[in-house]
């Protein structure tokens, strides 16, 4: 105990003696930690907002009426062992009636799974004409009752009501971007032209705004049976949508369903693979940037401790001749690194927190992947913990290297030098 106090006292006096350099080292560390926290708050905030929106707005799993692979030809069933070369020319795909066969039965079976909600849907392309504007959209035929269990689209409806679909024939709910493009408002009547060539007057009963630009600009909702009429496919369903109690299990469950029913079944992770992989790149850039800042801070620590060691070589010599061990000497200098690290970390925490608050208060109108008026900031204690751990490890290593050198100094060499 006494020894530690003594070593700490000596360590402190060394830093006092180089107050300015010490403060700069501390600031270097603080900047590293602070920027790490602020960047994490902003980027992870955006990522979480986006992921949460995807989970809320779209189903966790979608079963589509297609297959992932072309069906195998009989010849390859029979001869297609490894090493056999088969060449078939001019194979014409069989024309099948589109839609999920036996959809009702699939729905009935899967409804038994606990925690799973299911909504059979018919999706198709449609043109809306209003005044002189034509806009194409993906029209989803839904049941309001089951839709509410699948997505949180109801929460995103900014005017009108999801249940109004039931009280109007050929009612439609438009995405906000779509409504803007059409110049349409709730109560307006559009002309809907489906790819099957059927034309109906459709009344706008609601407008939703998710914040995800892509969705708001292209998607609209109607009743399932109305869409079946518009697409001229009565009783047909071409996608079955699922929501799960735990969205993180979507990939696994999607795989199981696909194995069982063969229809291409896509989890939200797969559907959004592109954007999720952008997040991975974003994270890598974030770690690299803050890593670089911390590395520079480390050089600061390494530098100040090396300087102190060169300056205090005589002190090291006398302490060792007095009976201080190598590890005592090493501790003195590692203490200094840890001290700079701890103070820098705490200031960095404060800095990161303040930067997060500042960024959160900035008004930014942005219409890119998401439509928003401010940055999404997340306050996650783990960012502070990770920043702290990285900072302490870096500071300790940066101090340990020169400290080791100091510990191995031979007092005789220094004493001889001083005497001569």
């Amino acid at each position, binding site marked *: 105990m*006494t*020894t530690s*106090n*003594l070593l700490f006292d*000596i360590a402190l*006096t*060394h830093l*006092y*003696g180089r107050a300015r350099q010490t403060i700069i080292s501390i600031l270097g560390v603080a900047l590293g930690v602070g920027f790490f926290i602020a960047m994490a708050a902003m980027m992870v905030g955006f990522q979480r907002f986006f992921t949460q929106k995807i989970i809320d707005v779209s189903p966790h799993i979608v079963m589509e009426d297609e297959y992932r692979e072309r069906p195998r030809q009989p010849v390859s069933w029979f001869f297609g062992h490894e090493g056999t070369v088969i060449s078939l020319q001019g194979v014409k795909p069989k024309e099948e009636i589109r839609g999920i066969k036996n959809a009702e039965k699939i729905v009935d079976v899967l409804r038994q799974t606990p925690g799973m909600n299911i909504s059979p849907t018919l999706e198709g392309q449609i043109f809306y004409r209003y005044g002189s504007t034509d806009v194409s959209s993906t029209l989803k035929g839904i049941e309001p009752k089951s839709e509410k269990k699948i997505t949180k689209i109801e929460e995103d409806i900014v005017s009108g009501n999801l249940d109004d679909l039931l009280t109007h024939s050929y009612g439609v709910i438009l995405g906000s971007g779509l409504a803007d493009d059409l110049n349409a408002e709730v109560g307006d009547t559009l002309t809907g032209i489906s790819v099957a060539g059927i034309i109906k007057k459709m009344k706008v009963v609601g407008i939703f705004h998710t914040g995800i630009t892509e969705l708001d600009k292209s998607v609209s909702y109607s009743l399932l049976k109305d869409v079946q009429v518009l697409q001229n496919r009565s009783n047909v369903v071409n996608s079955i949508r699922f929501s799960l109690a735990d969205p993180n299990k979507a990939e696994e469950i999607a795989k199981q369903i696909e194995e069982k029913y063969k229809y291409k079944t896509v989890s939200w992770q797969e559907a959004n693979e592109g954007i999720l992989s952008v997040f991975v790149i974003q994270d890598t850039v974030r770690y690299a940037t803050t890593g670089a800042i911390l590395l520079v801070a480390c050089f600061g620590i390494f530098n100040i401790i090396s300087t102190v060691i060169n300056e205090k070589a*005589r*002190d090291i*010599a*006398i*302490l*060792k*001749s*007095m*009976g*201080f*061990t*190598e*590890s*005592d000497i090493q501790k003195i200098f590692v203490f200094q690194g840890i001290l700079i690290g701890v103070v820098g970390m705490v200031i960095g925490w404060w800095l990161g927190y303040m930067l997060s608050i500042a960024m959160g208060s900035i008004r930014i109108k942005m219409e890119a992947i998401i439509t928003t008026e401010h940055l999404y900031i997340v306050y996650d204690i783990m960012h502070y913990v990770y920043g702290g751990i990285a900072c302490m490890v870096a500071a300790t290593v940066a101090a340990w290297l020169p400290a080791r050198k100091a510990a191995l100094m*031979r*007092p*005789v060499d220094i*004493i*001889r030098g*001083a*005497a001569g």
Partner: protein
Amino acid sequence: MSGSGRPLLEVKNLTRVLPLEVPVTLVKDVSLSIDPGQFISITGPSGSGKSSLLYLLGLLDRPTEGEIIIDGLETSKLSGRKLSSIRLGRLGFVFQFHFLLAEFTILDNVMIPMRKLGKWPENEQEGRAVSLLKDLGLGDHLHKVPSQLSGGQRQRVAIARAVSNEPLVILADEPTGNLDTKNSKIVHDIFRDLVDKKKTTVVMVTHDLDLASKTDRRIHLVDGKIASGN
């Protein structure tokens, strides 16, 4: 501890060779036995290996060959950690340069070895340091830093620090090398007192033959070998 009549410090066939490209022999086949309570001087021309011998005796350097027995303990095979602990509790060093820690007051400087050893309780350490410094005529300077003192005063602080853990042996390497005649005499008298009153053993390397003549025993080295005094 060492009242049994056995020598306090014993050196057998001690050789130290610097393993340079052309090896340099600093100390050659020195055997020596030092009894407790003696004031011993080591003299010799420069380069005769007197400081090297002192560093070996003080366990600051390891011999190439031979044994060093301190207070009955053979040291050549001991770990660095063990050697540190022997230095801390049983040896005290005074060098030509004072080697005081510049940022600490002289009181704190003297307390450092005590705080490290922890033999005396914390509340007694300061009192002991104060009385050591007062005995050496530094009672008025306790809270000054070394740069505020004269060369002679600093060297006295260094002596106070060396004796603070009541070592068995004080090893002094040209302790008066930077001092004028008056201060040299003061330092010499302090050592004399330590030997006479506290029965501490003092081994002092010096080139001042006048001072050396006043010690109990003179060991004269030439070319790393004992020429006389054994």
